[in-house]
C-alpha cells in the first residue's frame, strides 16, 4: 500500500503552464479566472464549515446530559443559531455551485470562462463581506434567534445582534444571486459547438436548475430580512402583532425563500451523483432526459411547497392541504432520480472508488431522508413531529447525508483536475466509510427522539431521552473524524500526491481532455462535442491500468 502514496514532487517551475502557475496573493485576490475563484470559495467555505462544525460539536457535547451542563441556555441558543446560519448560507448553499460549479461548469460546456468573470469575483467578495458581518456578530456575542429569525422574537424580543446577523445573510444573498445569474447566462450563451441542451452534462442541468432558484428566491429573502431589520431598528410594526402586523406573514416570506433554498442545497448534489454514477459504472445514465427534467421539475415545484413549514403555525386548514398535496408532488421527481441512478448501475462496469462510495452513500441517505420527508408532508403526522428532532434528523439526512457526501464525492472526483495530483485512495475510502457510519449513528437516533416528542432547540431535556442523545453525540465524534481525514490527505496530496495526468479515471467529458491542472483559458481551441455525454461502453474491459495498489 505504501507504494501508492510515495511522495512525488514536481518542480512547479517545470510543470506546464496552468491556472495555478501565477504566484502571489494578489494574483488570487484579483483573479477573474473561474477556476481560481472556485478555489477561493473552497478555502472560504471550509473555514465557515469548521466554525459551524465546532458549534455543532459543543451542542452535541452539551446534550450528553439532560440538564445540559456544558453551556448555559443563552450560549446554547447562540450556538445553534451560529451553526444554522453558517452551515446553510455559508457552507451548503455555496458548496457545490460556487466551488465545484465555478471550477468545472464552464469546462463542461467548453467555455473559456463564465459569461461575467468580474461579476464572479465580485460575488466572492460580497460573500466574504457577508461572512465578515456574521463573524463580527458572533465575536461580539452572536444572535439567539435560530437561523429562521422568526418574528416577533427576532424583531422585538431577542436581546442579541440580530440585525448584524441578518445583514450578513442579506449581503451573502447577493453573492448567490450573482452566481446564479452568471450560471444561467453562461449555460445559455457560452456552450461550445455541439453542446446542445440534450448533450449537456447532468451536472450542468442541475446547476442550471439551482441557479433559477437562487435568482428567483433569494430576493424575497433579502426583502424579508430588510423588513425584519427595519422593524427591529426603528421599532415600527411590520410583523409585530402588537402593532398590527402578522408574524405568520414573515414565515410565508421566509419560507418562500428557504424551502426552495433546500433545493439549492440538494440539486447540485444530485448533479454530482449523476456524474459519478455514470463515470464509475462506465455507462450512459439511464433515462437522461428524465433525470435532466427532474432537476427542472424539482426547481419549479419546489417553489410551491413552502407552506409545509407552517402546518401548525396558524395557517388556514385549506392552505395547509394545498401545500401538503404539492409537497407530495415534489417528491416524484426526486424518486425518479433515485430509480434512474439505480437502473444505471445495471449492466455497468462498476468500480467502487472513493467518489463512487460517496455517490452510493448519497443515494441511500438521500432516499432515507427523502422518505422521512413524506412523513413530514403528511399533515396527520406532521402535527405530531413538527419542530421536533424528527425534522432535525430529516433535513440532516438530506443536507449532510446528501449534499455533504455529494460534495465530498465531487471534490474527490475532480480533485486530480483541480490539483493535478491523486489523493491516497485507501485512506480516502476509509474516510468515506467512517463518514457514512458516523453520520447514521449521529442522526438515526434523532428520528426516534423526534417521534418520542423531543422538541428542537432545547438546551436541556427530560431524562427519558438521554440514551438517544448519547448515541447521537457518539456518532458526531465519529463523523468529525470522517470529515477531518480528507482535509489532511487532500492537503497532503497537493504536494506529495502522484501527478494525475489529464484523465486518471479514463472518464469522458471535456474536462478530461485538457491537462490537469487546466490551463488558464481551459481550451487551446474551442472544443466541439460530437458524441452524447457519458458515451461509455461498459462491455469494454477496464481501461484503468493498475495503479500499484
Amino acid at each position, binding site marked *: 500500500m505504501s507504494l501508492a502514496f510515495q511522495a512525488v514532487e514536481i518542480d512547479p517551475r517545470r510543470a506546464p503552464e496552468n491556472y495555478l502557475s501565477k504566484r502571489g496573493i494578489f494574483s488570487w485576490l484579483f483573479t477573474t479566472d473561474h477556476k481560481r475563484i472556485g478555489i477561493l470559495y473552497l478555502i472560504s467555505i471550509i473555514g465557515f464549515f469548521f466554525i459551524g462544525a465546532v458549534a455543532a460539536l459543543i451542542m452535541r457535547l452539551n446534550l450528553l446530559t439532560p440538564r445540559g451542563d456544558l453551556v448555559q441556555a443563552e450560549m446554547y441558543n447562540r450556538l445553534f443559531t451560529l451553526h444554522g446560519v453558517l452551515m446553510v448560507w455559508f457552507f451548503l448553499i455555496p458548496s457545490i455551485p460556487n466551488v465545484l460549479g465555478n471550477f468545472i461548469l464552464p469546462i463542461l460546456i467548453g467555455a473559456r470562462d463564465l459569461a461575467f468573470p468580474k461579476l464572479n469575483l465580485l460575488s466572492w467578495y460580497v460573500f466574504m463581506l457577508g461572512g465578515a458581518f456574521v463573524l463580527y456578530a458572533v465575536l461580539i456575542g452572536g444572535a439567539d434567534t435560530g437561523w429562521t429569525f422568526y418574528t416577533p422574537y427576532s424583531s422585538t424580543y431577542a436581546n442579541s445582534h440580530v440585525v448584524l446577523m441578518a445583514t450578513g445573510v442579506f449581503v451573502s444573498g447577493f453573492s448567490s*444571486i450573482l452566481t446564479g445569474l452568471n450560471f444561467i447566462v453562461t449555460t445559455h450563451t457560452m456552450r461550445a459547438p455541439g453542446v446542445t441542451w440534450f448533450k449537456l452534462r447532468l451536472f450542468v442541468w442541475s446547476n442550471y436548475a439551482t441557479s433559477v432558484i437562487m435568482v428567483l428566491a433569494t430576493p*424575497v429573502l433579502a426583502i424579508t430580512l430588510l423588513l425584519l431589520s427595519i422593524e427591529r431598528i426603528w421599532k415600527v410594526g411590520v410583523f409585530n402583532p402588537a402593532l398590527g402586523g*402578522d408574524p405568520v406573514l414573515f414565515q410565508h416570506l421566509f419560507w418562500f425563500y428557504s424551502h426552495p433554498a433546500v433545493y439549492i442545497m440538494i440539486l447540485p448534489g444530485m448533479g454530482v451523483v449523476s456524474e459519478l454514477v455514470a463515470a464509475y459504472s462506465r455507462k450512459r445514465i439511464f433515462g437522461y432526459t428524465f433525470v435532466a427534467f427532474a432537476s427542472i421539475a424539482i426547481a419549479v415545484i419546489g417553489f410551491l411547497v413552502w407552506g409545509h413549514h407552517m402546518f401548525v403555525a396558524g395557517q388556514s386548514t385549506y392552505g395547509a392541504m394545498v401545500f401538503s398535496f404539492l409537497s407530495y408532488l415534489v417528491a416524484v421527481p426526486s424518486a425518479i432520480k433515485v430509480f434512474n441512478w439505480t437502473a444505471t448501475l445495471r449492466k455497468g462496469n462498476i468500480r467502487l472508488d472513493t467518489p463512487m462510495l460517496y455517490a452510493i452513500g448519497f443515494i441511500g441517505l438521500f432516499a432515507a431522508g427523502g422518505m422521512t420527508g413524506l412523513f413530514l408532508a403528511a399533515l396527520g403526522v406532521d402535527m405530531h413531529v413538527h419542530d421536533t428532532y424528527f425534522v432535525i434528523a430529516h433535513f440532516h439526512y438530506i443536507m449532510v447525508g446528501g449534499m455533504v457526501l455529494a460534495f465530498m464525492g465531487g471534490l474527490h472526483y475532480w480533485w486530480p483536475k483541480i490539483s493535478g495530483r491523486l489523493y491516497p485512495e485507501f485512506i480516502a475510502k476509509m474516510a468515506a466509510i467512517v463518514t457514512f457510519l458516523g453520520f447514521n449513528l449521529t442522526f438515526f437516533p434523532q428520528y426516534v427522539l423526534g417521534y418520542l416528542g423531543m422538541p428542537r432547540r432545547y438546551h436541556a431535556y427530560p431524562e427519558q431521552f438521554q440514551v438517544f442523545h448519547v448515541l447521537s453525540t457518539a456518532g458526531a465524534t465519529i463523523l468529525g473524524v470522517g470529515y477531518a481525514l480528507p482535509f489532511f490527505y487532500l492537503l497532503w496530496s497537493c504536494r506529495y500526491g502522484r501527478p494525475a495526468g489529464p484523465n486518471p479515471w479514463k472518464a469522458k467529458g471535456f474536462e478530461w481532455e485538457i491537462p490537469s491542472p487546466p490551463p488558464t483559458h481551459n481550451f487551446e481551441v474551442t472544443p466541439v462535442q460530437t458524441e452524447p455525454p457519458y458515451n461509455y461502453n461498459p462491455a469494454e474491459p477496464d481501461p484503468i491500468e493498475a495503479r500499484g495498489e
Partner: protein
Amino acid sequence: MSESPSIAVHEQFDDLAQQRESAHLGMWIFLGTELMFFGGLFLGYTVYRISYPRAFAEAAHHLDLVMGSLNTYILLTSSFLYSLAISTYRARHRGPTLVLLGLAMLLGIIFLGIKGSEYYEDWEHGFLPGPAFTYQGPDHDHVLLFFVLYFIATGLHALHLLIGIFVTLVLIGLVVRSWFVKDREVAIEVFGLYWHFVDFIWIFIFPLFYLLGGP
C-alpha cells in the same frame, strides 16, 4: 456580424453577438430578481390591505396626490427620453444622445426632489414612523403600518433611482470622453433596461399607495 476595429470583445466570448446577448439576458434576469424583491414587499402590502382596508384608505388620504401624480408623469417622461437616447446613439447622433441622457437624469433628480419635499411634508404632519409619528386618529396602528410600508417602498425605489442617476452620469461621462465604441452601445442599452424598470416599479407603487384610498 461585421466587426469594427474598435470593438472590444471580452476574452471569454467568441464574438460581439454572444457578448451582447449575454449582457441583455443578464440584465433581464437581474431585473427578475428586482421584481421578486419588490414583489415580497407588495405581498406584504396586499395582505395588510386585505386585513385593514379602512385604515389603509384613511392613511392614503394623507398623501399628496398632486405631487405623486406629477412625479409619475416626470418618471414616465424620463423613461421616454432615455429610450430616445438609445435610438440616437444607435444612429450615431452624439449631441442629441448627450442632451437626452442629461434630461432623463435631470428628471430623475427632480423626481427625487419632489419625493424629498413630500417626505418633509409627511414628517411635518407627523406621519414619519418612529418617535415622530404623531397621528392620533382612529386605527392608529394600521395607519402606522401603511406609512411604514409606504416609506420602505418609496425609499427603496428612490434608492434604485439614485443608483440609476449615478450610473447615467458615468455613461454621460464616457460618451463625452470617447465617442463611439460599439461595446458602449450594449452598455447604454442594457442600463436603459434598468432605468425603465425603475419606472415600471413606480407605475405600481403609485396606484397602490396614492390611488387606492378612494375619493
